[in-house]
């Protein structure tokens, strides 16, 4: 098992804030919009340096999505910022008609995704956003795994023509990817090569998958770990290559098992190469109040849950 260490812990939303600031420096067409959550989205640096390119929309997310769509007409590259729940479910029809169907170059940037939002509870913990967004034709869906990857992804989507959903979160987590990484949309990252089981993870679950890999190694299981940061378009080639080698797969995501990354991979496997799959994901339920760690444990998203899923899926191999 390849050794991963970290010296710092940061939140992925700060990676977005840093990426947005850098994007603003690199391209004068980058504009940012926020629905009364500037601090939470870490947009302060952008606002300080580019006040004329920032639009405070107020608590009016539907209007924000429409204004963002309009800003693209005239060549602007709008980045909208609010919580994941208000970035997707609340404004689904606005995104569908004014952005996705209209083919607008809007970057929908969503913080506080998933259970790790914590104490605010289920009203704010959206676990369906990946599904909502991946179903829209032409929408790119990205869920980076740490500060550095989120920063790199924010810069990458600036250069990508078309609507993007960028999902990140609230808690501080280890920074374990490289600062100068090249982020390629739609390209999987091989975290660890192995032969017994493929573990695919996205977002906050990648570090947990690495921890699970270390535990599995102690049990004599050689896990291949792949980071899928881009859920759509999916790197089918990387996943298939790995599953053909290991013969089974565990998918890990901080999302409802329905509609998420695991479901996309199940679709891929059932139509190309049949192999047993286990899901480490929220089992079709809402979240609740609690600390992020408590919630991840209660909803079975811990490294130990990944270890158990890996053992189970290996036992299902023919």
């Amino acid at each position: 098992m390849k050794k991963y260490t970290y010296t710092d812990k940061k939140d992925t939303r700060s990676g977005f804030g840093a990426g947005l600031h850098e994007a603003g420096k690199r391209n004068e067409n980058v504009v940012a919009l926020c629905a009364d959550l500037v601090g939470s989205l870490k947009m302060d640096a952008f606002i300080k340096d580019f006040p004329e390119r920032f639009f405070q929309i107020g608590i009016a997310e539907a209007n924000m999505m429409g204004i963002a769509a309009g800003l693209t007409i005239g060549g602007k590259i709008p980045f909208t910022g609010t919580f994941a729940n208000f970035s997707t479910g609340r404004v689904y029809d606005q995104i569908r008609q004014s952005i996705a169907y209209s083919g607008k170059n809007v970057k929908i940037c969503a913080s506080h995704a998933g259970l790790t939002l914590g104490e605010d509870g289920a009203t704010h913990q959206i676990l369906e956003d990946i599904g909502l967004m991946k179903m829209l034709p032409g929408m790119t869906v990205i869920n980076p795994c740490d500060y550095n990857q989120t920063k790199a992804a924010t810069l990458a989507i600036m250069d990508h023509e078309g609507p993007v959903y960028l999902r990140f979160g609230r808690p501080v987590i280890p920074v374990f990817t490289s600062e100068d990484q090249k982020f390629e949309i739609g390209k999987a990252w091989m975290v660890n090569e192995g032969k017994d089981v493929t573990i695919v993870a996205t977002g906050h679950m990648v570090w947990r998958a690495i921890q699970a890999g270390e535990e599995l190694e102690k049990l004599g299981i050689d896990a291949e770990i792949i980071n899928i940061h881009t859920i759509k378009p999916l790197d089918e080639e990387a996943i298939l290559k790995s599953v053909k080698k290991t013969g089974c797969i565990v998918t890990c995501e901080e999302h409802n098992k329905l509609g998420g990354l695991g479901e996309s991979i199940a679709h891929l496997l059932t139509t190309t190469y049949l192999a047993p799959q286990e899901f480490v994901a929220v089992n079709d339920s809402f979240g609740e109040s609690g600390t992020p760690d408590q919630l991840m444990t209660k909803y079975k998203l811990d490294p130990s849950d990944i270890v158990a899923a890996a053992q189970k899926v290996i036992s299902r191999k023919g």
Partner: protein
Amino acid sequence: MKHTISELEDIASQVRRDILRMVHAVQSGHPGASLGCADFFTALYFEVMNHNPEFNMDGKNEDLFFLSNGHISPVWYSVLARAGYFDVSELKTFRKLDSRLQGHPTTHEGLPGIRVASGSLGQGLSVAIGAALAKKLNGDHSLVFALLGDGELQEGQNWEAFMFAPHNKVDNIIASVDYNGQQIDGPTEKVLSLENLQAKFEAFGWHVITSNGNNMEEILKSLEYAKSLTGKGKPILNLMSTQMGYGVDFMVGTHKWHGSAPNNDQLESALGQIKETIGDY
């Protein structure tokens, strides 16, 4: 003026014939408010707006138009074709398979003149405001026009947009409301009363003007006046009274033709009331 009032009225007459024939041909669509807004669209595209039928999505240095109540697509398609955005013969494909003239306007099929999809109501003003903000950032002094239905003002997103534009001094936008008092299920006052729209818009901080949207001379005067009000710190709202179905005696002033197509006899009767001027497609 580029055209005389009489010339513009002749174009609007032809547009009304186009609307009726398009909706009749496919036996679906929304003729009522399309007929009611034929004069307004004709004025916009043939006189008021500085625009280029050699369509470019970004529309830099030209006036832009956004239609929020996308179901009145027949009037927009007819006027776009008559203004040279595409060949008038394409009007016969309206709402048919593989057409660029979808039931509701869309950019998806690449029809020149359309900059955003509309149909699901209440979204157009936000998009128009975004385009107006982009113009300001680009140092582009041309204007953004938008049309909203009155019934769709029941959608809450409009009021988010009505609040945003004055606060942010978006003074390069002229939004018109097609104030015909009708929606699919009946008069707006019965379905969900709009109450005093002028007072509401003024309370939100818009500069409100009122006009008769079925009188060409008055439309031109009101839109020219609206243009003179731009750049003064407030967005402009043109509360434009129209009659749904205007121009056809049995369609006028009722919600019954909001979303119904005329049959053969009704088409014949309607066309008999509207002069063919610059030639049917």
